[in-house]
């Protein structure tokens, strides 16, 4: 057929050059804001009116900025994995861009390291850390004052007493038995057996140091006044050692997955050997469970644990839905900008836009479905353990915010915009929708993190901290600038599309 494109014409790919000035503006801006942020955070230890410190408030800002950009790169990883795992062909020409967005996970997670290492930050963000530390301190104090030896002594004394009491009882009992009639004798011997069993319970009590320490810790944690039942129950998961170790695992898993895939994909650019293609496809399927697990528990650790009492089984899916949606929006915007400056013009067609627009639409609906279901089930059942999350986000300022930003802005407006089928081929239109969705996603992440700030940090339980929004803006610009710099740098490191992918033909000529 006429108009059919031959992938051989594109075998050398397109290489991104330029963007130099913009790149350094972004880097400069990012670093500048980062410095401002660091200075403000480092000098913000003093307690403000309301009982919070500026550094603490800024911890939330940094988490917000990191999580927003993290979700974008997580979406990039997801789309790359999905493209391979579903054996797709349509998106080869945009797949490199998915990979590029995905590899940003490395830089974002590196920027996020202060969150898990700087004590001021993590103690402000995750209340369970200082609470648990305080309890552990108490436990340690008990150890130091010799509570273990004392408890052991008590137990041993108790055992001795029990033993002697039992011996006396036994002697008396045996004497009674000798005198008793057969029926009463049986009752007496039963009594003896029971006493013996009770004694065994006391004497066999585990007196090893570990067990005694545990007992003391439990006593401290379950104290009615100063203890914390939740933290005792959750100590296997919510403790700093395991928590930090898990972060390392997430880091390795997420970075490893996308770097491996991109490595093979770039290799394929060089020699066009289908083995790279097959390698990517095979491993993408195997990576999917690890990706899902790492992301789920990362958002449990970082976001759900902002309030350690709250829980929702849907949480991982909710964050995943938002990530995939917004990464697709970013992808559309990036591709369009590149086309506007003269790249990819021959390879990306309106057909690709239609497909990406459909995915955008599908994930708008999916996000709405997940967000609604999560809210709905908690709202409907209305039980104390869970409702706090939504109560907080429906109080005062946050009530209108939830309705306008999330219900109307994040769902209904994009839904109606993307309902029109043919408009998805109109670049201006689809880019407006994508940009809108991205902005709403900023608000979504803001909504997840920031409402926790006031109640957690202030002693008066203020819903919002006045003026703290500027820290959020600074953090966002800092991370955004650095993200943008690395992204532009990443664009230049390989062809803008996988130029020797064996399915390039299919993607170039895709027709809906």
């Amino acid at each position: 057929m006429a108009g059919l494109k031959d992938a051989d014409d594109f075998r050398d790919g397109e290489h991104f050059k330029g963007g130099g000035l913009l790149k350094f503006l972004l880097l400069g801006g990012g670093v500048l804001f980062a410095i401002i942020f660091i200075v403000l955070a480092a000098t913000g230890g003093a307690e403000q009116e309301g009982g919070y410190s500026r550094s603490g408030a800024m911890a939330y800002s940094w988490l917000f900025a990191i999580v927003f950009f993290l979700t974008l790169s997580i979406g990039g990883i997801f789309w790359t994995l999905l493209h391979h795992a579903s054996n797709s062909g349509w998106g080869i020409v945009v797949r490199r861009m998915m990979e590029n967005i995905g590899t940003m996970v490395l830089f974002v997670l590196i920027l996020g390291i202060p969150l898990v290492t700087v004590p001021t930050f993590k103690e402000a963000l995750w209340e369970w850390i200082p609470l648990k530390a305080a309890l552990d301190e108490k436990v340690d104090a008990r150890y130091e004052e010799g509570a273990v030896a004392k408890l052991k002594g008590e137990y041993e004394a108790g055992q001795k007493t029990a033993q002697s009491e039992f011996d006396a009882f036994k002697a008396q009992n045996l004497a009674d038995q000798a005198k008793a009639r057969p029926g009463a004798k049986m009752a007496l011997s039963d009594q003896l057996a029971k006493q013996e069993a009770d004694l065994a319970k006391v004497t066999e009590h585990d007196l090893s140091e570990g067990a005694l320490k545990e007992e003391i810790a439990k006593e401290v944690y379950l104290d009615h006044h100063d203890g914390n039942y939740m933290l005792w129950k959750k100590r296997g998961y919510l403790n700093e050692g395991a928590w930090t170790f898990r972060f390392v695992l997430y880091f390795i898993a997420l970075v490893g997955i996308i770097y491996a895939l991109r490595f093979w994909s770039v290799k394929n650019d060089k020699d066009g050997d289908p083995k790279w293609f097959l390698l990517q496809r095979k491993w993408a399927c195997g990576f999917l469970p690890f990706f899902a697990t790492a992301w789920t528990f990362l958002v449990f650790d970082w976001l759900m644990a902002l309030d350690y009492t709250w829980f929702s089984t849907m949480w991982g899916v909710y964050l995943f839905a938002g990530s995939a949606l917004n990464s697709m929006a970013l992808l559309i915007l990036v591709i369009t900008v590149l086309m506007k400056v003269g790249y990819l013009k021959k390879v990306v067609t309106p057909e690709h836009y239609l497909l990406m627009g459909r995915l955008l639409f599908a994930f708008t609906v999916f996000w709405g479905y997940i967000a609604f279901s999560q809210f709905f089930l908690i709202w409907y059942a209305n039980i104390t353990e869970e409702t706090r999350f939504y109560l907080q986000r429906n109080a005062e300022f946050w009530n209108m915010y939830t309705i306008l930003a999330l219900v109307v802005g994040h769902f209904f407006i994009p839904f109606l915009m993307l309902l029109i089928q043919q408009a998805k081929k109109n670049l201006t239109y689809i880019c407006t929708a994508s940009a809108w969705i991205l902005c709403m996603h900023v608000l979504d992440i803001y909504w997840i993190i920031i409402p926790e700030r006031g109640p957690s940090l202030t002693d008066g339980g203020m819903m919002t901290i006045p003026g703290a929004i500027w820290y959020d803006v600074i953090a966002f610009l800092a991370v955004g600038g650095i993200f943008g710099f690395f992204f532009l740098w990443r664009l230049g490191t390989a062809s803008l599309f996988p130029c020797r992918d064996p399915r390039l033909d299919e993607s170039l000529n895709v027709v809906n």
Partner: protein
Amino acid sequence: MSENRTTPFAYIAEFGSAPELYHAAEHVRDAGFKRWDVHTPYPVHGIDKAMGLGKSWLSTCSLIGGVTGFLTALSLEFFTQVMLYPTVVQNKPTNLSTIPAFFPVMFELTILFTAFATLIGLCAFIMLPRWNHPLFNSALFNKFSDDGFILVIESRDPKFRKERTREFLEEIGAGEIELLEA
């Protein structure tokens, strides 16, 4: 009667394959015919363009149906739960802030009404059902439901000429051609 019987109804022409039919359709379109159609065993991708047909506006019907369904459900729930007989159940207030609990029914009725509107719209747009059609009298035409690629130009078309149209059809590569009489 005999005169009526010789009135031509349409030319029926068979083509060998979908691409051939596709090109033929382009020719017929360019020749300016209006009352013609291609009959195929399956929907041929992109042939709308070859025939010069635009987008189907069936989606408008569906949209109207959907909105009707949504409003029906909303008013049904609002009138019965809030106005007629407000009862506090499951500790939910009897006003519109219970709307999340109303949502499932709204959704289902929106879908239901959309589906019916689409089906009714479809029947209206394609002017079916109808019990019979003159074209069914032709054995050649009936191949459309098996493996025939059929092009039909009706005699009602202002450009229809008994001889010239046949020549035209031969020119654009038709195989078997039949003049169907009504």
